[in-house]
């Protein structure tokens, strides 16, 4: 999970929950890494460790707030010696250090303790602050009451003295504990990111929370009422915790920050392992972050966000292969002749051709299917088979399933089927998926980033995203392949793709001995 991402003096900073002793959760400190481009990361020394009674049992998640005068303040949750969750303040020792190596904890910590009525173990993950109408800062903190997940709001002028608002920002019954609350504006003209304090008529506010009960990152678009610090969803049926997900796969504890350098809102996501702990101990590491994603309002649907890999990932592109109009008939698989298939950036567009032949297809399956890509229906599934081997004994289908051939009328699902991703019997192999709106006049498209054991799949420019972990035993290194497939019964698919080989990012320790 991530803490306080920020941009400072030419470097993007990432802090992450790190256990220096083992590849499992525990002994949580702040790992620290920097990058010029959020792709090529360099490890720095650990930024913060449990050292005081108020964080001795864990230096947990938090957020950075950049003050107008350039100061950086970090609010974070500490787990005290009595296992109480409290909020603490920390700041860089030296603001003119571009690497922000040293951090100091405020002497008066903790600055916020669980308020009356809030359980001491349900009070964590303070957000980046935003300025309200009265000039005071607001910070949101996730919690729950019974089974109602909610976000508390605190006001402050100095980030030392805080007052709790009477009303919470928002609450949704039945959703359980809200972790890693994130609250930020998006422009409805959809072209740039916005600073966290921006508000106005051309702005909607996103409220996001990580659902402790179900391990998903849920969000909703709505309106922020600055007069009383409350937020109301545009669609109460798709409220936080019961509606859209930032990612329909293995993805949790994400958070955004505003990149003031390139005027973007950037989303970080945590992807943990779905193999066994014994595997993790043997390999000596666990957990990944996705390629960071830009966050924009989807002004075409008006009801969702668009999440897309940052353009800097394109700097990893090496050679490319292009395939134009490959026809894939019902029930067939087409191999693609590319050099390697383990580190790829794929962009594919799909055209549908209705078949005049007798309609033998059932169209009663409209979702991912109980048996995933093996469940055939009239207009799906079709897509790519990633991390597959020649004999297809291992394969990970990434696919669309349409309910109608007229794109404006279809209910479409975008899915990743892991059931045959690996022959190993001790790894998780779920089917992931979510609906993706397709508007008439649009082309059906997907973008897929493949990196050995992680696949990030984006449908329709990032309207629906799925991150998956796979642990193949055969489809590895030189033996991995990429195929096209069409398991629909009533349509031909014509696929055009561009596939780039991706270089490694050579993530390594910061070279302090060399000049940088």
């Amino acid at each position, binding site marked *: 999970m991530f803490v306080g991402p920020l941009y400072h003096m030419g470097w993007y900073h990432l802090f992450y929950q790190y256990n220096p002793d*083992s590849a499992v*959760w525990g002994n949580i400190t702040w790992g620290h890494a920097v990058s010029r481009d959020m792709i090529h990361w360099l490890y720095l020394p650990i930024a913060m460790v449990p050292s005081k009674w108020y964080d001795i049992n864990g230096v947990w998640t938090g957020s950075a707030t950049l003050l107008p005068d350039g100061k950086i303040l970090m609010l974070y949750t500490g787990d005290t010696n009595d296992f109480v969750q409290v909020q603490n303040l920390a700041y860089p020792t030296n603001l003119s250090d571009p690497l922000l190596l040293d951090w100091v904890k405020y002497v008066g910590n903790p600055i916020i303790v669980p308020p009356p009525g809030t359980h001491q173990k349900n009070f964590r993950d303070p957000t980046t602050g935003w300025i309200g109408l009265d000039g005071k800062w607001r910070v949101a903190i996730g919690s729950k009451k019974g089974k109602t997940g909610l976000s508390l709001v605190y006001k402050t002028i100095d980030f030392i003295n805080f007052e709790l608002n009477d009303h919470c920002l928002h609450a949704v019954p039945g959703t359980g504990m809200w972790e890693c609350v994130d609250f930020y504006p998006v422009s409805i003209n959809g072209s740039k990111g916005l600073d966290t304090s921006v508000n106005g008529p051309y702005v909607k506010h996103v409220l996001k929370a990580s659902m402790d009960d179900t391990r998903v990152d849920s969000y909703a678009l709505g309106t922020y009422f600055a007069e009383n610090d409350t937020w109301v969803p545009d669609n109460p049926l798709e409220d936080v915790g019961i509606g859209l997900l930032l990612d329909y796969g293995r993805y949790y504890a994400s958070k955004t920050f505003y990149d003031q350098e390139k005027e973007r809102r950037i989303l970080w996501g945590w992807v943990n392992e779905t193999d*066994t702990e014994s595997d993790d*101990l043997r390999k000596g590491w666990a957990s990944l972050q996705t390629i960071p994603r830009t966050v924009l309002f989807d002004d075409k649907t008006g009801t969702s966000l668009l999440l897309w890999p940052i353009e800097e990932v394109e700097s990893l592109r090496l050679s490319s292969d292009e395939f134009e109009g490959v026809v894939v008939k019902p029930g067939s698989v087409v191999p693609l002749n590319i050099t390697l298939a383990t580190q790829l950036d794929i962009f594919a567009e799909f055209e549908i051709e209705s078949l005049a032949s007798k309609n033998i297809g059932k169209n009663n399956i409209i979702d991912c299917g109980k048996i995933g890509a093996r469940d055939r229906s009239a207009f799906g599934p079709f897509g790519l088979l990633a991390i597959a081997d020649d004999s297809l004994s291992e394969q990970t289908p990434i696919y669309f399933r349409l309910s109608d051939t007229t794109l404006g009328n279809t209910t479409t699902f975008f899915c990743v089927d892991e059931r045959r991703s690996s022959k190993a019997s*001790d790894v998780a192999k779920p089917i992931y998926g979510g609906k993706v709106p397709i508007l008439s006049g649009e082309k059906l498209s997907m973008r897929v980033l493949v990196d050995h054991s992680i696949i990030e799949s984006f449908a329709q420019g990032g309207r629906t995203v799925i991150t998956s972990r796979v642990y193949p035993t055969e489809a590895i290194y030189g033996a991995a392949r990429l195929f096209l497939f069409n398991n629909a019964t009533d349509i031909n698919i014509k696929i055009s793709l561009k596939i780039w080989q991706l270089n490694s990012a050579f993530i390594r320790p910061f070279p302090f001995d060399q000049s940088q």
Partner: protein
Amino acid sequence: MKTLSLIFCTLVMATISMPAGTNCRVIQQNKANLIEETCEQTPHRDLCIQYLSSDPRSTDADVTGLALIMVKVIKTKANKALDKIHQLLQESPEPGQKEALSSCADRYKAILEADVAVAIAALQKGNPKFAEDGANDAAIEATSCENSFSGKSPLTNENNAMHDVAATTGAIVRQLL
């Protein structure tokens, strides 16, 4: 409610020296009810009640405490399984058996180092979902150990017991979420 029973308890004791115990037992029965209520929502109810009741700490425990007791059971069973595995390895087993036993040793070590350690920390610190992950992993490690034997497994009892205890633990932790 509690105050009422206490007063009644005292009154009864003052007048008759007999079933005062009945009312005081009500208080104890509430604790036994917590064990029953909790175990009702687990896949192996009787096993759950058996393990929890036999640990003296269960009388004062809340659901987190009950979960910690079950994690202790996982730890004890994992240690026992490891002892047996080391014993079997010392008896010079044939290659297929030896490989499976070594793999099982890794798995049970992971149960101790990862699952148990993380579960205890997570339950104490109020982030129970990591404890649920640990319990689920322990069940998978045990099943995988059992499946690694091509012939007859010498650890069937241990693996089955671990699976059931782990599943029970996971179900108790889920009630904390």
